[in-house]
């Protein structure tokens, strides 16, 4: 008999849509409703292609072993390591991250989340400029100017426009799409740009210049060149003029600003533009980074309240230290300064650059990953946990840092433990080994 479970939270992207309906028939997921294509595929293929539970690589082959043996091996790797790296934390729950911080402290290693390849520059820019933020409900109820800069929500956050920013009828925006203007700044004519009122097609890698030109106009100076960033001068003046006619403006920005050259400086200048719009023109402007993974905001918040720093925290001296560029995952892997790694809640196989992955292939790697992803080729201890949000509960944080409880839809397959349990087991054994060794 098909049972429909309501208010299910979709654990894929930063939108964390919590109005999903999942149809379950004797512990098998058979269908979903209200979820986008990616969300549906996540639930549909959650129970297929699961990696075999605990396995250890013995002379080149991953051999299934008992849970006890796998926990001991993992703890032994982490205790003997001089500089272990604990990476990921963005596709698992906040409770698991809390245990992860304790584990990193016990092993005196480095803890880092996938923000280093997602929105680390945005956090670094906030550390220089602060930021006018808001929640998605404020956007729905009040925003009448939506700027999408360097992000493509139709592909990365499919339900973002229909649930939060463009189409819903807000408290003060009763006519939905018609009471809002949408502007997209992107070098490609993306699917988001096709829906927008105005698509500003910048020449790639020159966003910084365009933001500065807007700041110039705000500070009553003229555009300096005939065309800046590929946009003619009068087009820039008209865009600024149009932006000034609104009451409440929100800037959504994504990888287009953070992943290109000048990384945190692009966001730094965009925040300065937002503050100046607030101050000089009197439009209420806020901005919001489009966080990619469903709990990367949660990883930042949890690591920050546990250790004091949002990501790239190094415990090697016993107290937390934070210097992106010295203690962040990509740099530490690039320079080969890591001799053991634990990966949980992330998929470095599809997101890490070449040099980092080639170093990961040389060091012992503990991989806590439910599916048969390509990282298994180079990992040494493999756990296949129960999936957060589908087979066990937990807390995740939306892209505007709002915490939402993930619900349990189906029972996990046999001997698949939630992430929290796996990490507490490893932590117990690490403390025993440390106690014996000290």
């Amino acid at each position, binding site marked *: 008999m098909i049972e429909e479970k309501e208010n299910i939270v979709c654990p894929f992207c930063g939108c964390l849509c919590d109005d999903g309906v999942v149809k379950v028939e004797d512990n098998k997921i058979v269908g979903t409703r209200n979820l986008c294509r990616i969300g549906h595929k996540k639930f549909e293929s959650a129970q297929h292609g699961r990696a075999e539970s605990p396995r250890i690589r013995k002379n080149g082959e991953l051999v299934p072993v008992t849970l006890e043996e796998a926990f001991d091996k993992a703890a032994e790797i982490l205790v003997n390591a001089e500089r272990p790296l604990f990476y990921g934390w963005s596709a698992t729950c906040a409770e698991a991250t809390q245990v992860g911080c304790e584990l990193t402290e016990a092993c005196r290693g480095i803890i880092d989340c996938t923000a280093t390849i997602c929105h680390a520059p945005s956090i670094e820019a906030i550390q220089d400029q602060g930021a006018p933020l808001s929640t998605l409900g404020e956007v729905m109820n009040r925003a009448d100017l939506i700027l999408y800069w360097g992000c493509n929500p139709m592909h990365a956050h499919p339900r973002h426009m229909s649930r939060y920013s463009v189409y819903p009828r807000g408290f003060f925006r009763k006519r939905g799409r018609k009471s809002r203007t949408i502007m997209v700044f992107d070098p490609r004519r993306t699917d988001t740009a096709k829906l927008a009122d105005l698509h500003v097609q910048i020449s790639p890698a020159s966003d910084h210049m365009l933001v500065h030109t807007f700041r110039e106009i705000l500070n009553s100076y003229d555009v300096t060149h005939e065309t800046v960033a590929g946009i003619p001068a009068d087009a820039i003046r008209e865009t600024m003029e149009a932006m000034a006619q609104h009451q409440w403006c929100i800037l959504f920005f994504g990888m287009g600003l953070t992943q290109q050259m000048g990384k945190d400086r692009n966001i730094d200048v965009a925040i300065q533009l937002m503050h100046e719009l607030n101050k000089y023109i009197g439009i209420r402007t806020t901005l919001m980074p489009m966080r990619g993974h469903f709990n990367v905001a949660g990883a930042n918040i949890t690591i920050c309240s546990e250790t004091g720093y949002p990501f790239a925290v190094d415990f090697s*001296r016993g107290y937390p230290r934070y210097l992106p*560029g010295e203690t962040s995952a990509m740099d530490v892997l690039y320079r080969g*300064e890591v001799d053991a790694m634990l990966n949980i809640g992330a998929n470095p196989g599809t997101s890490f650059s070449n040099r980092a992955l080639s170093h990961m292939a040389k060091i012992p790697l503990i991989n806590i990953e439910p599916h048969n992803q390509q990282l298994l080729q180079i990992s040494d201890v493999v756990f296949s946990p129960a999936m957060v949000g589908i087979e066990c509960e937990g807390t995740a944080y939306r892209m505007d840092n709002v915490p939402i409880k993930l619900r349990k839809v189906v029972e996990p397959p046999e001997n698949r433990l939630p992430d929290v349990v796996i990490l507490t087991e490893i932590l117990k054994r690490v403390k025993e080994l440390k106690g014996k060794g000290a």
Partner: protein
Amino acid sequence: MNEIVLKPKDHTRISLEAEVITPDSFAGKSLDEIENMMLYQGNRSVRLKERFDVSGSPCDTAADLRIIIDGDAPRTKRVGEKMSCGEIVVRGNIDMHVGAEMTGGKITVEGNADNFVGREMVGGLIHIKGNALDYVGGTARGKMEGMRGGEIIVDGDAGDHVGNFMYGGVIKIRGNVGQSAGQHMRGKGTIIIGGNSWSRVGCEAADGTILVKGKVHLSTASLGYGCIGQVVKDPELGGDVIEGEFYELRADMGYEPKCGIAKVYASVGLNEHILPGGRTSVPRKGDMPVNRDMLPYLKIYHEEMIVKGGKK
């Protein structure tokens, strides 16, 4: 000048945190006390003698003590951190944070240095003969007051963000520089760049002066702010006169409360394309980037920057 020579043995891939290698901590100690000093490697602590052969003559006052690291130490960080006097000479490469937060004394590095050379420095002199990577004279994340005084000289190239949140002191770079030199400068610091600068010079700078002898490839609009200053001949900066004619441009006009007190000098021959239109005059003919194509500029940044392993 008494000398202590540290000859680096094998350097492991995991870097050493050697903030004890300063004249202040070596002063008044015997050789074997120095040998048993603690260095940190990952989460282990290591004796100095396991990584360096120590020889030379110790002495009591730090002022006339010179520490020589003769050899390549590319994985030894924080050498000369918080030192107040004396001298350090490195005959080879050195890792990050060399001379961080130092208040006096002199450091000479004959090879290359890594990030954060002279971070949040207050006084003293650092001379890098090779290249230095990013954040030369910069600040750690979040701090609003960076380098306060002292002097950094880099003979080779430097990376991005030279003199970030700078409050004072002088940085002289003879080679090329990456982007955002003098970003967020807040005090009377001076940056002199001998070679080219990629772009965004003096972006969001409130005070201080930056001089670029070579070509500023891309103007960020912050250089376009304000009226065209007059052409200055042989400006006197950082203690010595620099020959040549320079356009005097004002950096970030929007950055309250100082609004454009920061000055940027760009050499006359090469930088016509970045001159600002100014409040009154017609915007310049020509585009920024030239014919709307960023590819040549990206090639400069990715391929020709020596500091990033480009062609030499």
